[in-house]
Structure formats: structure tokens, C-alpha cells
């Protein structure tokens, strides 16, 4: 922990020159009170700085530790050879990268359109019906409540649900497969996408909608051509969060994707099982002695998440720039 001295050196407010303040006209009592209040402020700011510092320090420590320790095992070989299994786990992580990419693709492909459409419904159409009577407004209430509820359900519950509905031979019977995992993952991130999109759509100024309707555009044209483009950055944020969620989940995919080190043959090989990177980290850490390889996989995982964030951010910025004109 840092001492008081090092703390105040971080506080830039020190420099704002409070001792130059002309307080000549004040009584000593008032002066003392002001000094005390300044002191309290300094202490408070000190704590705020410390809190901010701690947060960043923890983050940096974790990332640096994983990158440094994992970095030792990372080379091209590690990336392009499949894991062989065994106690010391000969081989790399190629198939787990592939499985993860396929999984992310399908989860987003399923959940993003559904989630965005649900959000449009909730904001643009359901809200109009809220005042009315009968079954529709009630249904809307139920949907809204369900979304809230889903967002709070622990992920392993989704895993159990996916296992029972998609994997188990008693229901869909798809076994451990890319399809089962993608469907389950989609259920998991659907509330995330719906809520982010809902917020983004709600934040679009009412004047855009009125402007569009007044030109004789239909409600749907207004939503499609004006509201959605304006809400795109917020929607993309929801999708990025979802990607992060899929990449980092383990338990959900343990019970739906399975754990085989083989990857699906291609993107459309939906019936094959696989092993996601996060799951691979778990396997390596718990069932082998290749702890450094677990760290290496973790490091790649972090790098991939950062890359995905960057790519999606850049594309979304390009997209909105194009929509807005220069």
C-alpha cells in the first residue's frame, strides 16, 4: 500500500494553488474551517485516486502475469498444431481456436438478429400498445420481465437447459455439437443484446422519427433507415459484450459443445463437438501438468478478445461515418 506521501504526489489538485487564495478578510475561525474543508477534500480525492489506481493495477497485474507466463510457450507451432492430450499435453491449441471462432460466429449469427428485432419490438412497437387494454400490453410486460429475468440467470443454468433441450437424446438429440452449443450460447447472450439494443434505440432522438414520418415514410422505413443506423454504435457494443461472454464462458459449453480436442471440419459442420479455448484452459489447468500451456492459451484468449473489440469498433465507426456522411 502506498504511504500518504506518495499519494499526495499523485494528486494534481495540490498544484491548483489554494494557498494563494486571498482570504485576508476572513475571521480566524472561518479560515480554520476552510482549511479543514480543503483537507477533507484532499483526503477524499486521495481515496478516489487510490481506488482508480487499484482497479487499473489489478487489471494490469492479471494481464501481465498471464501474458508473461503464457508468452514462454507461445510460438507459431503452438498456434497451428492441435492439442494431443496426455498429462503434459504435447501440441498446441489450433483446434480450440477454430472451435471458438465457429462458436462465436454461430452464437452471434443467431442471437444478434433475434435480439435486435426483439429490442425494436419493445421500443418502437410495444410502447405504443402500453396504454391500451387487453392481451397485447400484458404480453409486452411479460416479455420485458422475461428479458430482465434472463439477464440475471447464472450461466450454468443455461448450460443445463441447453443440455436438456438440445444435447439430450430425449429432446432434440443433437449431442455435444457446435449446433447445441451455438443455440445455448445464443440463449445466454440474447438478454445482453436485447438490453443494449433497447437502450441504444431508445436513445435515438424523437425528432429523427418525427422527421421521417412527416416525410411520408412508414414506421418500418423509419425504423430501418433512420433509427437503426443511429442506434448502430450501441447495438454493436452489445454484440461485442456478447462475443466476450461466449469466448470466456466455460461451464455452459462444457455441457453442450463437449470437450473433444478435434475441431469441427468447417463452419457448417454443425453436428461435430469441439473444445473452446476457455474450456481448454480449464482442462489444461485441472487435468494436465501443462500449466504454462494453460497460461499460453489464456494469453491468446486475451489477445483475441482485444482484437475482436478493435475490429468491431473500427468497423462500426467506419459504418457510422459512412451513414452520417463526412
Amino acid at each position, binding site marked *: 500500500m502506498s504511504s500518504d506521501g506518495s499519494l499526495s504526489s499523485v494528486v494534481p489538485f495540490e498544484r491548483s494553488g489554494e494557498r494563494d487564495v486571498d482570504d485576508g478578510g476572513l475571521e480566524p475561525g472561518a479560515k480554520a474551517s476552510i482549511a479543514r474543508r480543503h483537507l477533507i477534500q484532499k483526503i477524499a480525492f486521495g481515496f478516489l485516486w487510490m481506488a482508480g489506481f487499484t482497479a487499473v493495477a489489478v487489471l494490469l497485474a492479471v494481464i501481465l502475469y498471464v501474458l508473461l507466463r503464457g508468452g514462454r510457450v507461445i510460438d507459431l507451432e503452438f498456434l497451428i498444431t492441435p492439442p494431443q492430450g496426455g498429462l503434459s499435453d504435447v501440441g498446441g491449441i489450433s483446434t480450440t481456436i477454430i472451435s471458438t471462432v465457429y462458436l462465436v460466429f454461430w452464437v452471434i449469427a443467431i442471437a444478434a438478429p433475434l435480439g435486435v428485432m426483439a429490442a425494436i419490438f419493445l421500443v418502437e412497437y410495444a410502447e*405504443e400498445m402500453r*396504454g391500451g387494454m387487453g392481451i397485447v400490453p400484458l404480453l409486452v410486460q411479460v416479455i420485458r420481465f422475461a428479458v430482465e429475468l434472463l439477464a440475471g440467470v447464472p450461466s450454468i443454468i443455461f448450460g443445463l437447459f441447453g443440455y436438456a433441450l438440445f444435447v439430450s437424446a430425449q429432446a432434440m438429440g443433437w449431442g455435444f455439437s457446435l449446433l447445441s452449443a451455438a443455440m445455448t450460447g445464443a440463449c445466454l447472450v440474447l438478454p445482453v443484446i436485447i438490453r443494449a439494443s433497447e437502450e441504444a434505440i431508445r436513445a435515438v*432522438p424523437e*425528432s*429523427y422519427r*418525427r*422527421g*421521417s*414520418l*412527416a*416525410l*411520408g*415514410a*412508414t414506421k418500418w*422505413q423509419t425504423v430501418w*433507415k*433512420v433509427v437503426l*443506423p*443511429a442506434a448502430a454504435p450501441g447495438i454493436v457494443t452489445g454484440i461485442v459484450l456478447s462475443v466476450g461472454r461466449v469466448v470466456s464462458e466455460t461451464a455452459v459449453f462444457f455441457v453442450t459443445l463437449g470437450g473433444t480436442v478435434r475441431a469441427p471440419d468447417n463452419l457448417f459442420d454443425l453436428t461435430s463437438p469441439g473444445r473452446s479455448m476457455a474450456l481448454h484452459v480449464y482442462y489444461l489447468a485441472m487435468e494436465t501438468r501443462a500449466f504454462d500451456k494453460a497460461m499460453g492459451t489464456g494469453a491468446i484468449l486475451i489477445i483475441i478478445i482485444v482484437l475482436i473489440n478493435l475490429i468491431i469498433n473500427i468497423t462500426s465507426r467506419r459504418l457510422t461515418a459512412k*451513414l*452520417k*456522411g*463526412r
Partner: protein
Amino acid sequence: MEDEVKLGTEDYSLFYGDFQALRDVSVDILANHITAIIGPSGCGKSTFIRTFNRMNDLISGVSVEGKVLLGERDIFQMDAVELRHRVGMVFQSPNPFPKSVFDNVAYGPVAHGVRDRAELAELVERSLRDAALWDEVKDDLHRSALSLSGGQQQRLCIARALAVEPEVILMDEPASALDPIATLRIEDLIETLKEDYTIVIVTHNMQQAARASDYTAFFMMDQEDRAGYLAEYGPTKSLFTNPQQKVTEDYITGRFG
């Protein structure tokens, strides 16, 4: 042709829930003229103008009585999309879409099914010229509409309304958010537009009404239940120089409001 009635209301009343905002308004608005609607705050003038393209439909709890006609047709029997195609609107504060200048103007025509690039380009140019904005934006039609000044944005919104080729243009205090020079430009523009369009403009600025309109409708509100009603309607010149009602005279001489 000269005195064709373009818009008309007969005993038109509007309610927000239980509150009556407009009472028994009957007015005939003439084609190819500028009709100004003036009156103190809260007299229902904005509500009244929003009637003609049914923007009040968007507010929940609104109900109406009486008739509103576009030409011969009852607007409440018309499809709202068709009505708004024929009756355009410019809002109080400029509300261009977060798109390029070109896409803003092309928005309406595209929504109505124009796909041909050349036709669109021509339509955009003509609308921008008619809105007196062309010279300022022609060098870069693909810049963001949000990068324009407030006055330019409002002229862009007028161009956007013109591009749909409506018969009537409603303007709800179109200059209230603009500086005096931009305001004058908009007024000049409105004057040139009346050759091709019927214009109804709400304004709280009486000089503007006196300067820029042919007819003026003065709305007042009932002292007891605050419902808006049409107090006086006539040629602008006679309404301002020789008002028939005491309340009109009080208002235009600035004794209240």
C-alpha cells in the same frame, strides 16, 4: 385557380384526454398563399398545424371532432402515409438525419420508391436550389448534414420536405431557433415557395407574420377552460391594420402575450 381552398377545417376540436386543446375551429386555407398562425403560448397553434399531416396521431390520448379537408377529401379517412406525402412539414428546431446532405434530401423520394440514381441526383439538386442551399453545399453533397450551421440545417430540412413534392408545407416556428439573418433568409425563401406550394406557418413573431404572410389566423384561448379557438382570420394586412376583434387588437398591439 386564384382562390382555390387547399385545406379546410369545419368545427374542428381536439382533446388531449379530457383537456380540450382546440374548440370548433373552422377555417379555409387558400392554395398558393402563405397563411400565418399566430397567438399566445398555449393557444393550440402548434397542435392545430400538426393536424394537417396528422402528426397528432403519434401522441397517445388525442381525440378529434369535426372535419379536416385536404381539397375535397377528409384527411382522417386518408392513409397517413399518403397524407404526409402530400402535406410536408418543417419543424421548430432543425432535425436533419445523421446522414449526408444528399441522403437527407433523397430520403423522402427513396422512401416513396424512387430508385434511379440520375433521377435522385436531379431531384436533390432541384430541391436544394429551391431551398436556397445549393450554392453552399454543392461542392460536397456527401458531408454530414450535422456539420452544417443551424440556418443551413433548417434550409436542408425545407429541401428535404420539397424533395417529396408535396402540395402543402407546414412550418412550425421554422425560424425560432435561428439568428436574425438566417431568419430573414428563411422568410425570403418562403416567399418564393408559395408559387408552387401552399404554406402554413406557425410563428410567435408578429413582425414575421406581418412581413411574410398573405393571410393570418389569430388563435386565442378561452379564459375559463384554456381551450384554443380561432379568434380572427383574414388577410394579413387588414388583420394587422384594422382588427375586427378587441382581443386581436390587444394582442397585436402587445397588450398581453
